[in-house]
């Protein structure tokens, strides 16, 4: 059997799917709905900065952002293959999807290190 990198991407997809399932809905609800509608108060600038600068928060946010991107990359790639019947472009699609996730990961790493 030919060796492929599929298990590696699948592991990232799977880890991202689990992390996203558990953590993203509450973030979307609080940040995107509860705060703008005034159900809860937005954290003060200094307080949220202190929270985000904590090493554990940085690690958490890095994992959440990066794995979410890889989860998307893998699912979106196969949706394009199967849904839109673009199997003949599989190399280009794979490069674009995983490439975007890698760029997003680097951006998250850079921003979280420089904050």
């Amino acid at each position, binding site marked *: 059997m030919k060796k492929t990198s599929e298990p590696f991407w699948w592991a990232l997809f799977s880890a991202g*799917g689990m992390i996203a399932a558990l953590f993203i809905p509450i973030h979307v609800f609080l940040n995107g709905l509860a705060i703008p509608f005034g159900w809860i108060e937005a954290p003060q600038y200094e307080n949220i900065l202190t929270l985000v600068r904590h090493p554990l928060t940085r690690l958490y946010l890095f994992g959440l*952002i990066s794995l979410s991107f890889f989860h998307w990359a893998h699912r979106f790639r196969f949706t394009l293959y199967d849904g839109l019947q673009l199997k003949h472009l599989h190399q280009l699609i794979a490069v674009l999807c995983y490439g975007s996730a890698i760029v997003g990961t680097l951006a998250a790493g850079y921003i979280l290190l420089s904050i």
Partner: protein
Amino acid sequence: MTHNSRYSKYHPKWYRTRTPIFWWIHKWVHVRFILREMTSVFVAFYALVLLFQIRALTQGPEAYTAFLAWLKTPVSIVLHVVAFVAVVFHTITWLNLMPRAMVLHFGQKRVPKAVIAASGYIAWAVVSIVIAWIMVTT
């Protein structure tokens, strides 16, 4: 979804019926499948929102205030409502698949599927409460 089949290029000598792009639209299970896969777009959207929020934090209090103001715009509200529905759909479908994807053993006995599913939902609830508590007290 994640099979390893090798796709061949178009070959005029082989007879193959062409599959239309919207092959999945006629059956609800297929539409559900495509919708489930498309929830990943909103997962990525939210990772981007988080990135922009952290970037605003690095740029100072004005940028953070501007970000909070953007959250109140109709575009942001609509995006977040749709994203919320999508990510909750992702969570439910993901947690429901978990017992079928994971085979756990406790001693000699296989852990029942219902226990694995329930533990997923309990983990989701605990995580959500902890994050909400941190955000409200910050």
